[in-house]
């Protein structure tokens, strides 16, 4: 078993990374960040925090590998099917009233959430009118997202999710499959742009009718959550929608007064006025 990283050691690592590479993890939730460092050390056969610090100071490629590892990029298509169903029932009819619909997926990882959204929009007849901006901190995930390659072994689960989400078509009509991957049809993807955006440091870049930021807040502490909520508020059109992850709450934030809940269970909110 690898020795527990102490709180002081964690702070040392975080400030080393900030100084050397400009990535600021100081407002990330402590318990899971610690766990990620710990897991990475196991994975990379690093015996202790001193060795880890030394490697980080000397080897930028090693840092890139670690950054990959600690920014969790786990994701799914139609994850939480009932969330998508609610989106379709409560939000899409309102979005349909706009001539152009702008959507931001913040923290899109390898894109599965975005691909789910375009299928939903396609079935609602809205995809044509949408501009979709999908961003993440992690450049390697974004490269994968652009290729829209989805491990074939996951497609069975995703088909299940799609049906539970109220999908109306044959799910396999949205992709072509080779031995290992399903590729989402490029025609469906033509209104998506993927690019790097760091929620900690980067600014508002457009105005949106809907922002999806699911399962990213759980990695942030309260101060950072508040800051990013302000960024989202400023990036939303009046009455624009914000969707968070199923277990992410606004209840513990001061910013909550500027939003109202559209579905408290599925964590869909709306900017007041």
């Amino acid at each position: 078993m690898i020795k527990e990283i102490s709180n002081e050691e964690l702070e040392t690592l975080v400030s080393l990374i900030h100084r050397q590479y400009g990535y600021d993890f100081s407002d990330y939730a402590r318990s899971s960040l610690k766990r990620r460092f710990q897991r990475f050390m196991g994975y990379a056969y690093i015996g202790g925090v001193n060795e880890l610090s030394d490697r980080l100071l000397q080897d930028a490629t090693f840092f890139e590998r670690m950054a990959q590892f600690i920014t969790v990029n786990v994701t799914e298509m139609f994850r939480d099917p009932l969330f998508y169903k609610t989106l379709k029932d409560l939000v899409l009819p309102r979005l349909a009233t706009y001539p152009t619909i702008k959507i931001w997926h913040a923290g899109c990882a390898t894109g599965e959430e975005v691909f789910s959204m375009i299928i939903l929009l396609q079935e609602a007849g809205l995809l044509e009118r949408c501009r979709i901006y999908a961003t993440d901190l992690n450049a390697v995930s974004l490269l994968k997202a652009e290729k829209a390659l989805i491990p074939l072994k996951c497609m069975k689960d995703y088909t299940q999710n799609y049906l539970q989400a109220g999908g109306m078509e044959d799910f396999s009509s949205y992709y072509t499959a080779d031995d290992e991957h399903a590729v989402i049809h490029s025609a469906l993807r033509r209104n998506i742009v993927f690019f790097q955006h760091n929620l900690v440091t980067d600014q508002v870049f457009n105005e949106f009718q809907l922002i999806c930021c699911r399962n990213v807040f759980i990695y942030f502490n309260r101060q950072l959550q508040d800051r990013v909520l302000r960024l989202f508020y400023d990036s939303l059109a009046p009455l624009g929608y914000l969707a968070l992850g199923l277990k992410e709450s606004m209840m513990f934030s001061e910013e909550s007064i500027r939003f109202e809940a559209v579905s408290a269970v599925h964590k869909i909110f709306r900017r007041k006025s």
Partner: protein
Amino acid sequence: MQIPSPYDMIAIGGSAGSLPVLAELLEQLPVSIDCTMMIIVHRLKNVPSDLDRLLSLKAPITEPEDKQPVLSRRIYLAPQNYHLLIETDGTFALDYSEPLHYSRPSIDVSFASVAAAYGPRALGILLSGASKDGAAGMQQIIAAGGTGIVQDPASALFDTMPLAALELCPEAQPMSITDMVHFLTELKMSAEHDQ
């Protein structure tokens, strides 16, 4: 003389075959132990679960959300598809990193964070299960000065989990369900003795 309840956190983990045991434990449990209880059981993902409803019949149970404060005299259930952690500032933190032992929530993950947050004031309990999840976490609870209890393997529907824990943690005490209820009731009585 004051004998305060020795634990602030009772963390219970289980997998296959643990539900009936858990229901029995909750049913017989003194409701008002002055500490927090946290349950981590392996569940299917993206399937609306009857588990919380089933357990809620016995006692009010909540699935915590991220950053929710951890309160005493409450029972919390780890939500499906997330790891459940505790921050040192006394709030819950959820984590969506990869499953451990094919499980998310993983008992090891929660137990490790309970060990770090509560030290000697943590009690870990492992029930029936066909997985080794939880053993390493229990080792961490015990190493931090906490206490470990394991369902007596002979009475467990699946003994892999209790056996793995006993093998890794010789200090953990095997107990029958009746003994566990007894142990927990004693906690309550010594706590009541205070008042």
